[in-house]
C-alpha cells in the first residue's frame, strides 16, 4: 500500500476512535466491568497469550525517587492492571490435552492447553511479581455496594529500584474475582492516593455483551507437539496458520488509539508516529531483501516467510509495561517484535537491535537449523554487521564499526590482528572479547559484500562453508546416535564417565570446527591463505 494512503487511513482511524486521555471511563463488555481512571492515564496492550491480566493502564506522568545512600535516581510511571480469576467452572471447561489424528486414525499432533495454576490474587502475586522483594503489609475485608472486597497493601522494599507500594482491591463477583492493582513509588503515594482510591471505588459490574470470557483454546496458550515428519506443503500450511493466529491474537484487545497497518512484509501495530513506523518498515524490508540476495541457497520453494508483527510502543515505559521487564533480546526473535519510538533514529541501540532481529528472523524462517548451528565467526559476523547496517532507499548497506576503523586497523599495523584462518578456527573463548566479534564482522563483510565477494578465491566461501557444515553435523549426529551408552556400575566407572562427558563437550566443538575447516579448505595452499589475509587486511585499510 502506498505510504500516503496508509497515512490517510491512519488519520481516519485515529479520528474515529476516542483515545483514553479524554474519556476516563473504561468499560469492558467482555468481562463485564467498568472503572473510572485518573486523568491522562492511557491503556496499553496486553500480551496475546495472557490469561489473567485483562487490562493495563499507565500514567502519563513520570515520578522519581532518589536513593538516599546510593544517590541513584529511579523513575517510574504508575501503573494499573486488572487481573481476572475465573471460578472453577470456567477452568474445568479448558481442554488439557487433545490428540489430533489424521485420516488413518494415527495421532499426528498433541495440543496442550496451558492452564494457569494461579488460584487467587496472592498466588498470582507470589508467582509473577518481579519488581523486588515484597510482602503483604495489610489485608482488610470491606464492601463495595453488594460486592465483597479484599483490600491489600503490598510493600516492595528489598532489591527494588526504589521502595514501592502496590494497592490492590479484589472484587469478588459471582464467578470472577477482579483484582484491580495499582503500583507506584512509596514516596509518590501521597500525591496519587486520592486518584487511585477513587478509581478503586469506581469499580462496577456491567452486563457482559461481547465475546466469551474463556479464551479460545485454538488461539492462546497452546503448545503443539508434532509427531513424525511433515511434508513441505504441510509445513507451509502450518506456518500460514500460525501466522494468521498470531496476527489475530495481536490485534485482539488492542487499545483504540493504536494503528494497525498491513504492510507487504510486516503487520505493524503502531502507537508512535507514522515516520517511526516507516523508518522501521523500510529497514526491515531492506534487511529481508539483502538476505534473499545474500543467502539464496537457504531459500526453498516451499518456504513461507511469515510476516512478523512490528509493535511500536510510544515510549520505553509502555514497552516495559507490555513486556513485563524489558524488550526482547537474544539472537532468535519471536514473531511479535516489540520496540518503542526511538528518538535517536538510525544508529541507536534500539534501531540496531531491531535490524539484528529482522536478519535473525529471516534466517530462522528459512533454515532454523542453520541458525542454531552457525559457527561463531558467522554468527557474530552477521550480528555485529547488523548493528551498523543502514538502508538507503530499498538497499541495505553494511558499515564498519568504530572499533574496526581504529582498533582493528591498529592491530593490523602492529601485526597482531587475527587472520582469516585464525578466525575460522577460533572457539568460544576467542569471542569473549567484544573486539573479536567486530573482527568477525569485518571478515563477513569482506566475504559477503566487499572485495572478497568478487575474488575468485573467496566469492563462494560462505556458501561452501555452510554446505560443508550442514553435512558434517549430520554425520556427527549419526555417529553419536549409533554410540551405545553403558550405565556405570562402580564409582570408578561413574567418575570416568563424568570425566569423559566433560571432555567430550569440549572436544565436540573443536572437532566440528576442524572437520568443516578441513572440508572447505582441503585444497588451499599457504600461498592462497596469505593472499586471502593480505586482501582482507587491505580492505580494512
Amino acid at each position: 500500500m502506498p505510504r500516503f494512503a496508509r497515512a490517510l487511513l491512519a488519520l481516519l482511524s485515529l479520528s474515529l476512535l476516542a483515545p483514553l486521555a479524554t474519556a476516563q471511563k473504561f468499560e469492558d463488555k467482555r468481562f463485564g466491568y467498568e472503572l473510572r481512571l485518573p486523568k491522562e492515564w492511557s491503556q496499553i496492550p496486553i500480551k496475546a497469550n495472557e490469561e489473567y491480566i485483562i487490562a493495563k493502564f499507565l500514567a502519563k506522568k513520570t515520578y522519581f525517587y532518589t536513593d538516599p545512600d546510593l544517590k541513584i535516581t529511579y523513575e517510574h510511571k504508575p501503573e494499573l492492571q486488572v487481573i481476572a480469576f475465573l471460578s472453577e467452572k470456567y477452568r474445568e471447561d479448558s481442554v488439557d490435552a487433545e490428540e489430533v489424528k489424521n485420516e488413518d486414525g494415527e495421532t499426528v499432533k498433541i495440543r496442550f492447553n496451558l492452564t494457569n495454576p494461579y488460584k487467587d490474587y496472592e498466588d498470582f502475586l507470589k508467582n509473577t511479581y518481579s519488581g523486588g522483594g515484597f510482602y503483604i503489609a495489610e489485608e482488610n475485608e470491606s464492601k463495595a455496594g453488594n460486592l465483597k472486597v479484599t483490600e491489600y497493601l503490598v510493600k516492595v522494599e528489598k532489591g527494588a529500584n526504589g521502595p514501592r507500594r502496590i494497592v490492590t482491591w479484589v472484587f469478588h463477583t459471582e464467578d470472577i474475582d477482579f483484582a484491580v492493582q495499582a503500583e507506584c513509588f512509596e514516596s509518590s503515594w501521597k500525591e496519587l492516593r486520592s486518584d487511585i482510591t477513587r478509581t478503586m471505588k469506581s469499580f462496577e459490574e456491567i452486563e457482559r455483551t461481547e465475546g466469551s470470557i474463556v479464551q479460545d483454546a485454538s488461539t492462546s496458550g497452546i503448545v503443539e507437539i508434532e509427531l513424525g515428519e511433515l511434508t513441505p506443503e504441510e509445513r507451509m500450511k502450518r506456518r500460514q496458520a500460525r501466522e494468521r493466529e498470531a496476527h489475530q491474537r495481536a490485534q485482539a484487545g488492542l487499545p483504540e488509539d493504536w494503528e494497525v497497518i498491513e504492510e507487504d512484509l510486516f503487520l505493524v501495530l503502531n502507537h508512535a508516529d507514522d515516520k517511526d513506523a516507516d523508518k522501521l518498515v523500510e529497514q526491515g524490508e531492506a534487511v529481508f531483501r539483502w538476505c534473499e540476495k545474500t543467502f539464496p541457497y537457504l531459500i526453498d520453494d516451499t518456504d513461507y516467510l511469515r510476516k512478523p508483527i512490528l509493535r511500536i510502543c510510544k515510549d520505553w515505559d509502555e514497552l516495559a509495561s507490555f513486556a513485563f521487564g524489558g524488550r526482547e533480546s537474544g539472537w532468535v526473535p519471536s514473531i511479535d517484535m516489540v520496540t518503542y519510538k526511538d528518538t535517536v533514529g538510525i544508529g541507536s541501540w534500539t534501531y540496531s537491535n531491531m535490524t539484528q532481529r529482522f536478519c535473525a528472523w529471516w534466517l530462522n524462517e528459512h533454515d532454523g537449523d542453520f541458525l542454531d548451528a552457525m559457527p561463531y565467526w558467522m554468527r557474530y559476523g552477521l550480528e555485529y554487521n547488523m548493528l551498523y547496517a543502514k538502508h538507503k532507499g530499498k538497499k541495505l548497506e553494511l558499515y564498519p564499526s568504530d572499533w574496526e576503523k581504529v582498533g582493528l586497523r591498529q592491530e593490523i599495523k602492529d601485526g597482531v590482528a587475527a587472520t582469516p584462518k585464525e578466525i575460522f578456527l577460533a572457539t568460544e573463548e576467542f569471542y569473549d572479547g567484544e573486539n573479536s566479534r567486530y573482527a568477525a564482522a569485518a571478515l563477513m563483510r569482506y566475504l559477503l559484500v566487499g572485495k572478497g565477494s568478487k575474488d575468485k578465491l573467496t566469492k563462494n566461501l560462505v556458501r561452501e562453508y555452510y554446505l560443508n557444515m550442514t553435512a558434517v553435523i549430520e554425520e556427527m549426529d549419526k555417529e553419536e546416535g549409533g554410540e551405545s551408552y553403558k550405565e556405570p556400575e562402580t564409582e570408578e566407572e561413574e567418575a570416568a564417565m563424568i570425566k569423559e562427558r566433560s571432555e567430550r563437550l569440549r572436544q565436540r566443538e573443536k572437532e566440528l570446527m576442524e572437520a568443516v575447516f578441513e572440508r572447505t579448505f582441503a585444497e588451499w595452499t599457504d600461498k592462497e591463505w596469505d593472499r586471502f589475509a593480505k586482501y582482507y587486511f587491505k580492505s580494512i585499510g
Partner: protein
Amino acid sequence: MLRNSVIPTLALSLLAAAPAAAQAQGEDMLLLKDGRIFLDVELVTTPEGEVTVQFENGEVHVPGHLIQEALDLDAPPPAPKNAEEEAKIAEGLLMYQGKWVSASKRDKMFRDEIEDRREELVSIQDSQLWRNRSFEKTKHFEFEYTVPPHVFEIYRDQLEAYFKVFAKDWKVKPPKDNPRLKICMYVTESDFLQIGGVPKGVLGYFRFVDPMELNFFYDRRDPVFTTEVLFHEANHYMQKLIDLEFKMPHFPGEAIAEYYGGAHWDVDKKKLTVGLVLPSRLVEVKTDIATGKYWGLEELVSADEVYQHYTWGWTLAHFLMKSKKHEKNFKKFVMALAEDKKVRRESVSIGAIPLKMVRGSEVWEAFRRFMKIETDEAVKELEKEWHDYIDNELKVEGVRAKEAAGVRAVKGYPRQMIRGKRLLSEAVEEGSTSPIVYQTLGEIFYDDRDYAKAAELFEKAVSFDPLEPGYTFWHGMALKRLGQSEEGQQRIELAKEMGINDPSLRWLLELEDELDD
C-alpha cells in the same frame, strides 16, 4: 551471596513451617523444637509423656526429642511418685504448679493456662508473617525475624559468639556510629526469596553498602546448614569491618567466608568451633579431581570471580589457616589487600558510594609477596603442599560429613548416584538420624524398583520426622508398589491430611498417577 548449585528437589521444597491444609481435629496444641506449630489438633498424651497426634486417616506418634511443648487439654495428671502423693490423690487433690489443689480447681487453672498459651502460640504463628515480625537488639546485631522465639534464640546466641571469635582473630570492631548490623531471618525459604527479592538458588546474602543488612532463612530440616549460611554471610560483614571503604575481592573473600562457615555451635556448652570440614564443598572438589582437574594456585588466586573460590578457595583457606607455617602470613595477606600501601587498588562506585577494590592479578601479586612465594619454584612447592593436603588430609569422614556429601553427590551436578548411594548408605550404617538421608536414599531405591528397601528407608524417615507429610507420602507410594494397597493408600491420605496440599508439595500428587501405570 551464597548460591546453591544443587538442583532444587524435594529437599528444598518441603519447608512449610506448619501444614497448610491440616484440618482442625481438636483443641490441643503442639510446638516442635524445629519451630512448627500445630493448633487445633487432637493429642493423646500418656503419663510418661508420649504424644500421639490423631488424624482422620491415622495416628502419628511424635518422639519426645522433637517436642518443645505439647498442650493436651485431656492430658491425665502425672502419675503419683510415692505413697504420700497417692494419699493426696485419694483425698481428691491433684498437684498443680507445686501446690495440691482440688481436682476442679486444677482443671480450671489448667484450662486457663492452656488458653493463655494458645494465645501465645497464635501470636507466634501470626508473627511468622513479615508484617508481624519480631525485633530484638543484641550487642552487635539488630534482628528482625519470623521464626519462633526458641529457634531464634539459638541463632542469636551463636551469632554473637561467632562475632566474638572472628573479631578477636582478626582484630576488627564495628563503627561507633553504626554498631549493629541488621539481620533478617525468615521462617521459610519461600518467604526469604519473596521478601528478600532474590531468585531461587540464593541461600543468603549480605548487602555490603549502606544500609548494610544480612538476609537468610531457617531451614528447619537442616539447622546445621542454616548456621553455615548465616556464618558465611556474617563473615562478609566482618571482613567489611577491616575497612568499610574496601570491597574484599572474591578471593579470598568467599574462601574465608566458607572457612568460617564451617563452624559448630554447641548449644549446651555454648562453645563455638570454627574451621571444620565442609563436606558438600569437599565433594565438589573431589569431583573436579575425578574429572582430571586440579585448580592451580595462580589460576585460582588471580581469577576475578569464579565459582571455584567457594570450593577450591575454601580448601586453600582451610589449608593455610590450619597451618602454623602459613596462617600468620595468610592473615597478613588478607589485611594487606585493604591496608598495605604497595597493593594497587582501583576505585569503584556503587551508586554514589565510593569503594576500593583489587583486581585478581594484583591479588595474586600480593599473595606471592605475603606468602613469600616470589619464585616459580616456591609457587609450585606451595601448590603441591596444598594439593597434597586436599588429597590426604581433607576427607569425608563422620556421619555428618557423609550425610552432606551423599546428598550433594545425588542432587548436585554432575550427579554421582553410585557415590552418593554409597555415602548415604554408610551414613545410615553409622547411625544417621537425618530424615533427609533416609528419604534421599529411599528415592534412589524406589527409582531402582527395590520397593521393599525403599519402604524400609521411608519408614525410617517417618520415624525421625513423623509430621513431615512428604515422608509419609513416599512411604505410602512404596507400600502400594509392594502390593500393600490399603495401608499404602492410608499413608497417602494421611500425608494429604497433614498438609501435602501445600503448593510447594503439589507436584508430589502427580506421582500418585504413576501408580496406575
